[in-house]
């Protein structure tokens, strides 16, 4: 049979380099992605701390520095904070990190469909991060055009401001490389899900995590190709004197720009055609993880499994059609705005279905409040709070007032930022025993949860309010404007809470690395969960199932089945078998 010459069974590699650096093992690659995201999140968080410091004490010197931050410096930090967080944390960790590690195991595959491509995908991401960070160290520093890099500011080059020369060029190159990495990664995810499922693993038996990674991969495949095209056009405007985005008659720094006829709106359309799906790329994997965790710790099947799958699809499909709601103030026709607005509000329906189903799963369950569960419930809370702000912003009439205010900052940080991060934390605490064979410390975990949970509400809810009061975003210094100066105490409050919240993340990192070595040992299936990752040793062997791919007999969330011997029925246990097949 096919097993001998099977192209997917590859030998366990020998030597440190092939085992841990240029590894083709999806588990190693998953961990590499997670570590890359950890480094990135530390950089991104550090940048946000500097910005918060400046907002609270605009006239104070920065810590460890003799300088007072300039507005340009602030904008550069803001650009890099946004870019690093969106691409190298929110896209990388939940999808490429956890997805790489657990998708093949959860569908009963030995590895991804294209292991070499998988390795390349990681190393492209790594190079991309290096190029991005290099932008800090070139003449002029990092770009100041925001993570959205709106043209013409981003298209003009040095003349438009510091960081818009080489810094911006590196930024575009970095993202182009990232696009390549994402395309390779998503192609791999989709093929693996379609073609490498174990016997009996029908689509409707897949864990919701797999569904979420699969649908996210489809979004990535479609969206990143468009970002790549946009990046190529922008690069040509910068380097080859074309005029795709630069309009005529533009006077910058007292000089008439030679370009003519380009359309800045064109950039916005291309960017947001990618940018809005990107929001869902960040949040959908979190939704999958949360469904997985809530079902396990409620000891109940997920409420409305099929509805959850269809809701994921609906969110992804609608997510591809609503990019215009980022552009209500760009002068678009009110009719288009109406269409975009209506479609945007439609996303409320599948989102509500998901929320309802999570609560329905919790309802009447035997809830175990582990740290993973707390973060999963926290995700639901934050997602609702942040999502409701989205309904405000979806209406053009309201958005015209709220556009580019702190209301938007509060909204997207709660939804795609914090909610997605909570999804990652839930995944980390939940899967840590599988990845490293040890538990993370639960007491520290709960401390981490409660301070983070209260902290992020205390940071981002006030932003909604100062946004309603008309506080524009992206301002480095608000002391010179009378009505903004009145809100400065709010900034001070946010900054103090932010420092505490960042501080407790250090507890998380200590807990993570301490537990890798010293944590309490975990057995194979410590949470008494049903899916396939809990049937293999911790950490799993090189080809996951030691050459014996499992056979699947039931759905992913059969908890508390009436008449079953225990309150969980693993997917690989046939009907009528009284005890789970002992772990291999």
């Amino acid at each position: 049979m096919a097993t001998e010459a099977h192209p997917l069974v590859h030998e366990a590699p020998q030597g440190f380099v092939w085992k841990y650096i240029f590894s083709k093992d999806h588990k190693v690659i998953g961990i590499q992605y997670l570590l890359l995201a950890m480094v990135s999140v530390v950089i991104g968080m550090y940048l946000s701390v500097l910005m918060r410091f400046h907002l609270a004490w605009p006239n104070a010197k920065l810590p460890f520095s003799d300088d007072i931050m300039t507005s340009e410096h602030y904008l550069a930090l803001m650009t890099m904070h946004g870019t690093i967080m969106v691409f190298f944390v929110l896209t990388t960790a939940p999808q490429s990190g956890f997805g790489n590690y657990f998708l093949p195991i959860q569908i009963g595959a030995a590895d991804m469909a294209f292991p070499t491509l998988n390795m390349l995908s990681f190393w492209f991401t790594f190079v991309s991060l290096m190029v991005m960070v290099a932008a800090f160290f070139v003449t002029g520093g990092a770009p100041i055009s925001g993570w959205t890099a709106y043209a013409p500011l981003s298209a003009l080059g040095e003349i438009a401001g510091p960081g818009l020369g080489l810094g911006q060029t590196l930024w575009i190159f970095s993202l182009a490389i990232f696009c390549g990495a994402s395309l390779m990664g998503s192609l791999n995810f989709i093929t693996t899900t379609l073609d490498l499922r174990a016997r009996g693993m029908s689509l409707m038996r897949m864990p919701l995590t797999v569904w979420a990674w699969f649908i996210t991969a489809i979004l990535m495949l479609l969206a990143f190709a468009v970002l790549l095209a946009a990046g190529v056009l922008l690069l040509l405007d910068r380097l080859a004197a074309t005029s795709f985005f630069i309009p005529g008659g533009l006077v910058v720094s007292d000089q008439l720009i030679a370009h003519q006829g380009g359309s800045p709106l064109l950039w916005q359309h291309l960017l947001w055609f990618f940018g809005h799906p990107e929001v869902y790329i960040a949040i959908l994997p979190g939704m999958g993880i949360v469904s997985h965790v809530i079902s396990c710790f409620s000891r109940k099947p997920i409420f409305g499994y099929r509805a959850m799958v269809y809701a994921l699809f609906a969110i992804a499909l609608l997510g591809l059609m609503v990019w215009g709601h980022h552009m209500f103030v760009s002068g678009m026709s009110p009719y288009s705005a109406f269409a975009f607005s209506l479609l945007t509000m439609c996303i409320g329906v599948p989102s509500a279905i998901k929320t309802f189903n999570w609560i329905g799963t919790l309802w009447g369950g035997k809830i175990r409040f582990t740290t993973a569960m707390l973060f999963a419930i926290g995700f639901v809370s934050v997602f609702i709070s942040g999502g409701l702000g989205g309904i405000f912003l979806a209406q053009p009439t309201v958005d015209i007032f709220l556009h580019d205010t702190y209301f938007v900052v509060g909204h997207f940080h709660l939804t795609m930022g914090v909610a997605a991060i909570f999804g990652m934390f839930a995944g980390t605490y939940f899967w840590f025993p599988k990845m490293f064979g040890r538990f993370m410390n639960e007491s520290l975990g709960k401390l981490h949860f409660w301070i983070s949970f209260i902290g992020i509400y205390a940071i981002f809810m006030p932003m909604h309010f100062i946004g309603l009061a008309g506080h524009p975003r992206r301002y480095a210094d608000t002391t010179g404007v009378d009505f903004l100066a009145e809100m400065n105490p709010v900034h001070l409050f946010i900054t103090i809470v932010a420092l505490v919240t960042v501080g407790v993340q250090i507890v998380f990192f200590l807990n993570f690395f301490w537990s890798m070595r010293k944590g309490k040992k975990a057995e194979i299936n410590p949470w008494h969960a049903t899916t396939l990752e809990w049937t293999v040793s911790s950490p799993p062997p090189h080809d996951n199932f030691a050459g014996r791919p499992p056979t699947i007999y039931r759905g992913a969330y059969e908890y508390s089945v009436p008449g079953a011997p225990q309150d969980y029925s693993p997917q690989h246990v046939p009907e009528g078998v009284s005890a789970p097949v002992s772990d291999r």
Partner: protein
Amino acid sequence: MTARTATGEVELIEVGGGDRGPASAESRPGRGGDGGAAPLFPQRIYISGIVLALAAMLMFFMALASAYVVRKGLSGDWIPLGLPRILWLNTAVIIVSSLTIERARRLLAPQAAGLRGFRGWPRRWRGWWGLTTALGVAFLVGQLIAWQQLAAAGIYLATNPSSSFFYLITTAHGIHLLGGLVALSVVGFRSWPAEARVNHSTAVTVSAIYWHFLGALWVFLFLLLLVGR
């Protein structure tokens, strides 16, 4: 069931092989109605992979095409570009190459099914495959000539948005086609040794799918440049 050829590189297609069938069908009727996926044909992942890659490429070119339409519609500085006539010839060449690669691919089909209907198919296969490769090279040379003619007329990348898009779109397509040529050459060289028996391999199928896509894509892009001038 992966048979290896003399070159050890190309696999036989599996016809009706593979152990399909969900383990669930008997134990749990009514659940998981779409059945479990069979433990893969090795070939299947490559077909899925190339189709997905094409989807991404299509999105890339559609983004360029919509940028083309929007940029043209929104501005007053658009000067229609007279396309070099050689592009008609190039279009004909790439369409013919799609036919020749299909001929080569189909030559293998009876072989794979075990029907060795005629003698001498490896030689004929090599002929059609080589012809396709040559036509691909001819297309690229034709595109280079088109650029040269434009440049000779003083029309460069930044001359006008219409020329910017022309150079960009043809270059992007050309780079993809160059990748296709590499694939065709690799498959061709593997089958060159006299003892090599070319089979209806994954590599042939995947290259053919890619090549057809590039042909169809070029026809679309050519029409865009021509009609949407």
